């Protein structure tokens, strides 16, 4: 009897904990807002090493007003609408890059797990590549992309952005997935051997399910990397329509309308949070049958 009730209680406990930490997160944001305004007040009284004027640091309410104003004088779209559409576009590109990165990362992890030769040969470079600023290649990759076409499909700079997002996403994922695929204990593997299971069956029935607890944190890192890759690639390449480009454009208009760039930055933050939320939903779906007490 208690068995049937336990999962329900666990789920509601999870929900309650989630709501509680959401409350704390909101309190944290409120704290940041209060500190922002406090710095402005202090700055007006004594000289600080930063510009606390309304142009560099507009009031929080000025930012909100700025969001509702037309994007350019006389246009129908407000700043908010422009930012929302750029946010969604960047999110789409980032998630596209994330999906490609996850697919390639998983494939690579399976190959490395299956053939020791590839693990020995590739893994050091996969790890080393996490320590080097690959993002430095972004301007060059776009340069390459602009000059190639595959058959009738003309390469689009958006593909370059997605490509950059995907290669940033795949490194953390392949390392995490490999660790997960290698997670089953010797006992589990011997059990599968005793059933005369094929390598494919062992992969499907044992290694994939066992890798989920490793996969989920790797996906969180990958999604964040894809978002950073997207935003930076948009900035360093000037691809239009995305939030990265909008941040740069609005930053140039800062003297005229200081609030705009803040709205765009919030858009960039929203891309990250939305991507994280999508991964969290994926996490819920993947781990709903697993005990939740790993961290305890």
């Amino acid at each position, binding site marked *: 009897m208690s068995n049937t009730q336990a999962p329900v209680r666990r789920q509601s406990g999870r929900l309650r904990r989630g709501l509680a930490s959401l409350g704390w997160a909101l309190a944290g944001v409120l704290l940041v807002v209060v500190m922002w305004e406090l710095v402005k007040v202090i700055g007006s009284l004594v000289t600080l090493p930063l510009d606390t004027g309304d142009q560099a640091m507009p009031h929080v309410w000025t930012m909100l007003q700025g969001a509702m104003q037309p994007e350019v004088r006389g246009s129908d779209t407000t700043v908010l609408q422009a930012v929302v559409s750029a946010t969604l576009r960047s999110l789409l590109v980032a998630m596209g890059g994330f999906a490609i990165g996850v697919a390639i990362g998983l494939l690579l992890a399976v190959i490395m797990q299956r053939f020791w030769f590839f693990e020995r040969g590739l893994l050091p470079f996969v790890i080393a590549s996490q320590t080097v600023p690959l993002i430095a290649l972004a301007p060059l990759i776009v*340069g390459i992309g602009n000059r190639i076409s595959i058959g009738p499909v003309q390469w689009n700079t958006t593909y370059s952005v997605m490509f950059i997002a995907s290669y940033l996403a795949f490194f953390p994922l392949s390392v995490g997935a490999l660790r997960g695929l290698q997670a089953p204990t010797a006992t589990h593997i011997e059990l599968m051997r005793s059933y005369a299971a094929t390598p494919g069956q062992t992969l499907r029935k044992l290694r994939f399910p066992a890798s989920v607890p490793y996969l989920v944190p790797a996906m*969180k890192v990958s999604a964040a990397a894809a978002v950073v890759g997207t935003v930076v690639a948009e900035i*360093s390449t000037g691809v239009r329509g995305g939030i990265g480009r909008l941040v740069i454009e609005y930053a140039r208009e800062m003297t005229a309308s200081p609030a705009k760039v803040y709205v765009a930055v919030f858009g960039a933050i929203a891309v990250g949070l939305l991507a994280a939320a999508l991964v969290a939903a994926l996490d819920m779906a993947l781990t709903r049958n697993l005990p939740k007490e790993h961290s305890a």
Partner: protein
Amino acid sequence: MGQRLRLIWPPVVVAAVFLALWQGIVVVNDIKPYLLPAPSLIFTSLFDNVSGVFDATVYTATTAFLGLMIGIVIGTLIALLASRFIVVNKLATPLAAGLAAVPIIALTPILNNMFDITSRTPRVLVTIIIVFFPIFVNVTRGLTQIQPAHLELMRSLNASAGKVARLVRIPNALPFFLTGMKVAAPLSVIAALVAEYFGGPQQGLGARIASSAANTAYGRAWAYVTAAIVVGLLFYLAVLLLERLVTPWTGRARSA
């Protein structure tokens, strides 16, 4: 010494073979430099401009180093507070998790406006914020994830809270701190580099990569990229060295 050598030579051989193949493919297929310059072109560009590359490297590495050091101090301090005061923990944990998911680098133009854009300050600040998260999360974990038996032992020995902190919590947190450093050090280089894409002084690696690429000087752009990769590796190796020195007891199961 012989052991060190045995650790170092396989990746060196692999890298040499990789470079040779790259060179061969570019030469045989006559690949244009804008697609992929040959390693020889990258190296000649590097040596033609060695002082320029060196200056840009020093500039960006300095930004990264300053941001890393200050970020480590702030991250550690807040982690210490969070392990001591539950309110700090509750406030900081979701904010830190949010920071990890968000492209912090997009804050650069705002910081450029608030602080002197012609100085290094905004870039260092962005680096600090980016470095903060891995340090905070790992140090908090290390200070709080103590074996219950260790705490019981210390209580059975009548140890004060200060003694528990000094003899158990801090040594326990050190390997976690270094794990955070291993993530933070490469991130600091990336942050310092990318922050240069948002305008401001042009003498760093990021700015040079962007301007070389814009001027179709691909060999030079790749030379700067090479320097950036070297800086990233050096930062990481420095942390590995520090780990050997500070936590020799973790030698057994570094991967775990």
